[in-house]
C-alpha cells in the first residue's frame, strides 16, 4: 500500500504521482490521507490501480477517471467522477450535486444520498445510488443507467435522450419528455447486474423504469412550451 498524505505534499504532487502509474505498474494499491475536502483529488487517473481516499473530498474527485477503482471513505463534493470514462468510483457517504455528470463509462456507486443534477448529461456511465437523489437529475442524459434505490426529486430525466432510469421509491415529478416505461426482462437483467456490482440490498422487481418519450427528438413547433 502506497500512502499519499495531503498534509505533507501538495495536490499537484499527489495527482502527478498517480498519473505516472503505467498500465503495468505493480503499485496497485494507493491510499490518500488527510484529504480534508480538497478539490480535484485523484482526477485524470489512467491506470488499473485502486485508490482509497480516507475522508471527505471537495469538487471533482475522480474526475475523468479511466481504469482506476477509487473508494471515498467519506462524502464527496460536487462533480464527483464527472466525465468518467471507465473504472469504478464508490462513495461511502453522500455525494453533492452533479455526481457522475457527463460520464461516458464505468460505474459510480453512491452509498448515501446524491444531491441535485445526479447523472446530468450522462453519456454511458452507470450510476447506482443507495439512497435518494435530488432535482433535475439525469437532465439531457444520453445513455447509460441511473439506478436509485430511494426516491427521486423533481424533474427527473428532463429532456432525456436514451439513458435508462430505474427508481425504487417515489419520483416527485418527471421532467419534459420523461415517461414511465415497461420493465422488460432485459431491463431486469441489467438492473440485477448493477445492483450486485454496487452491493445494493434491493430486488430488481421493486423498481420502475423511466425513459424518453422521444417527442423532443425532432425539433418542431408542437414541442414548444
Amino acid at each position, binding site marked *: 500500500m502506497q500512502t499519499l498524505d495531503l498534509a505533507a505534499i501538495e495536490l499537484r504532487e499527489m495527482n502527478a504521482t498517480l498519473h505516472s502509474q503505467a498500465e503495468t505498474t505493480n503499485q496497485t494499491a494507493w491510499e490518500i490521507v488527510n484529504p480534508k475536502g480538497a478539490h480535484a483529488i485523484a482526477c485524470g487517473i489512467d491506470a488499473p490501480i485502486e485508490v482509497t481516499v480516507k475522508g471527505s473530498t471537495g469538487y471533482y474527485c475522480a474526475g475523468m477517471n479511466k481504469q482506476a477503482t477509487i473508494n471515498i471513505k467519506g462524502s464527496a463534493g460536487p462533480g464527483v467522477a*464527472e466525465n468518467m470514462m471507465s473504472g469504478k468510483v464508490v462513495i461511502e457517504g453522500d455525494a453533492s450535486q452533479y455526481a457522475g455528470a457527463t460520464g461516458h463509462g464505468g460505474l459510480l456507486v453512491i452509498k448515501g444520498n446524491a444531491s441535485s443534477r445526479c447523472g446530468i448529461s450522462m453519456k454511458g456511465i452507470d450510476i447506482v445510488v443507495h439512497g435518494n437523489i435530488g432535482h433535475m437529475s439525469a437532465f439531457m442524459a444520453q445513455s447509460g443507467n441511473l439506478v436509485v434505490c430511494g426516491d427521486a426529486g423533481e424533474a427527473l430525466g428532463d429532456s432525456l435522450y436514451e439513458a435508462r432510469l430505474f427508481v425504487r421509491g417515489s419520483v416527485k415529478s418527471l421532467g419534459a419528455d420523461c415517461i414511465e416505461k415497461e420493465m422488460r426482462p432485459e431491463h431486469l437483467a441489467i438492473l440485477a447486474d448493477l445492483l450486485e456490482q454496487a452491493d445494493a440490498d434491493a430486488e430488481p422487481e421493486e423498481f420502475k423504469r423511466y425513459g424518453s418519450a422521444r417527442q423532443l427528438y425532432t425539433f418542431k413547433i408542437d414541442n414548444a412550451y
Partner: protein
Amino acid sequence: MTDTTNGAPRTAPIQSATFSNPVNAEIRRAAATGIYDIRGGGAKRKLPHFDDLLFLGASISRYPLEGYREKCGTSVTLGTRFAKNPIELDIPITIAGMSFGALSGGAKEALGRGATLAGTSTTTGDGGMTNEERGHSNKLVYQYLPSRYGMNPDDLRRADAIEIVVGQGAKPGGGGMLLGQKISDRVAEMRNLPKGIDQRSACRHPDWTGPDDLEIKILELREITGWKVPIYIKVGGARPYFDTTLAVKAGADVVVLDGMQGGTAATQDVFIENVGQPILACIREAVRALQDLGLHREVQLVVSGGIRTGADVAKAMAMGADAVAIGTAALIALGDNDPKWEADYNALGTTAGAYDDWHEGKDPAGITTQDPELMKRFDPIEGGRRLNNYLRVMTLEAQTIARACGKSHLHNLEPEDLCALTLEAAAMAKIPLAGTDWYPGKPGTSY
C-alpha cells in the same frame, strides 16, 4: 409613376423602411409555418464596426517605418499566466472554434492545413476532436463546451490549449442545435447519440454554476493536464467588463471575447440579430477590466466577431487585443458561398453570398455538410492553400498599416493611432471623433 386616369400626378409608391421586403417576407414565412427561422452565418444587420474607425498614419509627430523593408513583428504568445507551455503563434490571427458535425471532415482538415501553413492555431468545436483535425493542426485548441460531446481526458492531453466556452457572440446565453439531417454515423458515434435525431447543446455547463465553481473546474482541468496547457475562457460580447473580470478571477490564461457579428452554425434568427453587442463596443471594456486588474498583456485577449481584413486585425490590436479569431471569414476563404455554385444556391432558393441554412446539411460547397456527395466537391488541400493565402494577406495588410503608424510590431499599435468616423463608433470604441480630441462619455466632459 404617374396616375393617368384623371391626368393628376400621384406620389410614387414608397416601400416602408419598417415593413421592408425582407421583414414582410419573414412575416409571411412565420405565418405559413408557425415557427421561427433557424439559420447560421451570424448577424446580417448593419452594426457599428471597425469600418467606422480610421488609422492616423505618421507624418511629423509620428515617424513611419518603410514598407516591405523595415521589420514589423507579428508573433504572439498566448497563455503566459500559468501554463508551462504557452502557445506561440507566428501571426495574431487564429481560427475560431467550429465543430466537426456542423462542418465536414474535409473542411476541418482544410482549416488545420491552412492554419498550420500560416503558423497559427485552429480550434475544435462542439463535437469533439478528430484525428484528422489533430493531425493537420500544428497548434490545436480543444473546446470544453456545455454539451461535452466527445469529451475525454485523452483528447484534453492531446490539445495545445483548452478553451472553456461559456458564451458565443452570435448567441450569448443560448445553446446550440445540430439538426438530425447532419447526424451521420460518425457524428452520432462521437456524440453518444442515436443517428438522425436533433442534438442539443445546453446553454449552460452541467457541472458548475458560477465563477467560484468555474475556478475549481479550471483547477481540475489543470490537474488532469499537468498544468501544461493554457486555459482560455470564451465569452459572448454582452457584459464584457464584468465577464472578463470574472473570467480572470476564475483563473483564465486567455480571455476570448466574441462580438455579435460572430457566426454560428445554427440558431434562431431573432437571437442572432437581437442579442449581444457589436465587438466594437466590447473590446475597450474588456481591456479596461484587464487594466483594472493589472493584468493587461499578462492575460491575453483574443477578440472575434466579424473580423475580415488586415485593417480589422490592426484596429482590434490597437484597441488592446493581443490576437483575433476568424470563423465565417475562414469558411468564405475555403470556398463557402462561392459564386461558382450559384446554380446550386439558386436551387435552394437563395444566392451565393446569402446562403445561411447550414443546419440543413445541403451546402453546395461541401463545407457545412455531412452529405458524402457534396463533401466530394471540397478539396481540403486546396482549401488549406486558400486559407493560408488569406491569412497571409491579412497579416501583410495589418503590417502595412502598423508600419505607417510607425510600429515595429503589431502589438505596438495603440488607441492613439485611431480616430472615429461616427459618434456611435467614437462612443463605443472610446476613440476620439475624427478632427477632435473628444468622444462621447470621455471622463472630464459633461457629455
